[in-house]
């Protein structure tokens, strides 16, 4: 490896830009936007491990996100313990749930797998809504703010660096999947399971491993999100909107690429933030229009760049 590929350079630029933002800007709106771009990027990268690299397209990753969010929120709100402990508990629970979902992927393929993951997230949503004694039901759980790193009561600047570290971890995990044995074997599983078996790859075990790692990372991000936002409620954290967002960032940015989820997140998150800020609020009358514009942009991308933004870049590079 003497020369870095252009997409690696793009990632370096992106992460470096995020890292220097707090040195230049102190505006919380900007910092908040950068944090969310990185967080949704990391979550989409986590999804990409299963959906992109292993080809197990899930539309229920909100399940793991919600498990993580609730684990952290309840640990600090109900038991007064550090949300880091909650994060660890959430990761353990999500590994168990991920193993179950991963096992399902051996029975149900393609769209049937995606449907079963949706159902799984919906079941958790109902459980969280109804189990009032423990989760406070649909009222949700406000997360107490206790300043400090151990209690994850942080300012925007500190949050930015915590989330940046997670984003780098998620990116590094994907890069690992592009050059390691397990990564190549997952690519084989994704491309053709029968052929992968013929070459000695334990396809079932590999798929479960991919979904488990993906679930664990999603759950960890969910815990951090809960602490950052300060409020967890079932209809949001287990929603299909979230699951779709994880998938969409990757698909728009470039599925199965390390940079894709982050590029997708830059585009989708900033577009959404901008449209929401511009077309809602006092001037209203246009309250819902950002969703329409958002939808049109998605259609255009799927129509003209079916391989995502990294695909466009690759095509331009080839043409030269």
């Amino acid at each position, binding site marked *: 490896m003497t020369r870095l590929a252009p997409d690696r350079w793009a990632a370096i630029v992106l992460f470096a830009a995020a890292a220097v933002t707090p040195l230049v800007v102190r505006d919380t709106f900007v910092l908040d936007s950068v944090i969310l771009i990185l967080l949704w990027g990391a979550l989409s990268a986590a999804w990409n491990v299963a959906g992109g690299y292993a080809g197990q397209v899930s539309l229920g990753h909100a399940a793991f996100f919600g498990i993580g969010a609730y684990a952290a929120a309840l640990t600090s709100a109900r038991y007064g313990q550090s949300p880091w402990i909650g994060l660890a508990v959430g990761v353990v629970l999500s590994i168990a749930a991920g193993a179950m979902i991963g096992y399902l992927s051996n029975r149900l393929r393609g769209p049937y797998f995606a449907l079963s993951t949706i159902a799984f997230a919906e079941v958790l949503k109902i459980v969280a809504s109804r189990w009032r004694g423990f989760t406070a039901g649909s009222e949700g759980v406000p997360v107490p703010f206790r300043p400090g790193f151990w209690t994850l009561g942080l300012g925007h600047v500190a949050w930015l660096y915590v989330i940046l570290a997670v984003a780098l971890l998620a990116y590094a995990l994907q890069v690992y999947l592009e050059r390691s044995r397990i990564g*190549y*074997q997952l*690519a084989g599983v994704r*491309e053709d399971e029968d052929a992968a078996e013929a070459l*000695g790859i334990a396809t079932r075990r590999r798929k479960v491993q991919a979904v488990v790692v993906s679930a664990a990372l999603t759950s960890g991000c969910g815990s951090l999100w809960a602490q950052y936002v300060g409020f967890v409620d079932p209809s949001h954290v287990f929603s299909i909107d979230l699951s779709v967002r994880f998938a969409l960032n990757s698909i728009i940015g470039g599925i199965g690429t390390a940079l894709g989820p982050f590029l997708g997140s830059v585009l989708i998150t900033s577009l959404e933030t901008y449209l929401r800020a511009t077309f809602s609020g006092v001037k209203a009358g246009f309250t819902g229009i950002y969703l329409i514009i958002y939808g049109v942009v998605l259609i255009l991308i799927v129509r003209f760049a079916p391989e995502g933004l990294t695909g466009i870049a690759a095509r331009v590079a080839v043409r030269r």
Partner: protein
Amino acid sequence: MWPRSAPGSRVLTLEAVTKRFGGLTAVRAVSLEVRAGDLLGIIGPNGAGKTTLFNVIAGYYRPEEGRVVFDGRDVTGLPPHAISRLGLTRTFQIVKPFGNLSVADNVMIGALTRLPRVREARVEADRVIALCGLAPHARARARALPIGLRKRLEVARALATRPRLLLLDEVMAGLNPAELAGIVDLVRRVHAEGVTLIVIEHIMAAMMRLAQRIVMLHHGEKLAEGTPQEIAHDRRVVDAYLGEEFNLAEA
């Protein structure tokens, strides 16, 4: 280079293997013995159970009756990847390339089965790619290859797992004469490297020249077995498959 079985030792034994799909018996009580260094051909009309037999041997189907013994070990019911790691692998009649990956990556994924380090697997893949005449296409996407080269890729990827027994399922079908000559040559070279082969093929001319022994399947049963000469003169084989106009001169 390749792990070899002791010459003449039994590599594969099928003991009265039967595979049914509902009321249909696709393979009926087929017994077979393959010794190290053999190049066994399997022929038979469409629907005779040839590919089903491969699926049973390689672990894709579990037979209702009978046993599959590979190198003295009962592999009946083992998953395909476990059988492949023991040194028995197969190619697919309908080729299954990893379409979005390069030829080099396709072959390397095969090599990674024996060589866990990516760097070593890459070197091994390059060697196999050269052996299979795919070197000029190593960086091409597998799905962009014409069928002749995809058939070669299928063989290359299987070879990279360093099998002792390789099942080739119609690697010559649908090729033009030049491609055909190339792949016949490739099969010979693979055999010369010490890999025991079982080959399913419809192209009798090639089969007659390649195979040391031929088994004829018909309606899932073993109808005949013998040298190419014996098979070509076998009344039952001529009636069921070759037809009257077939003669050895043509082959």
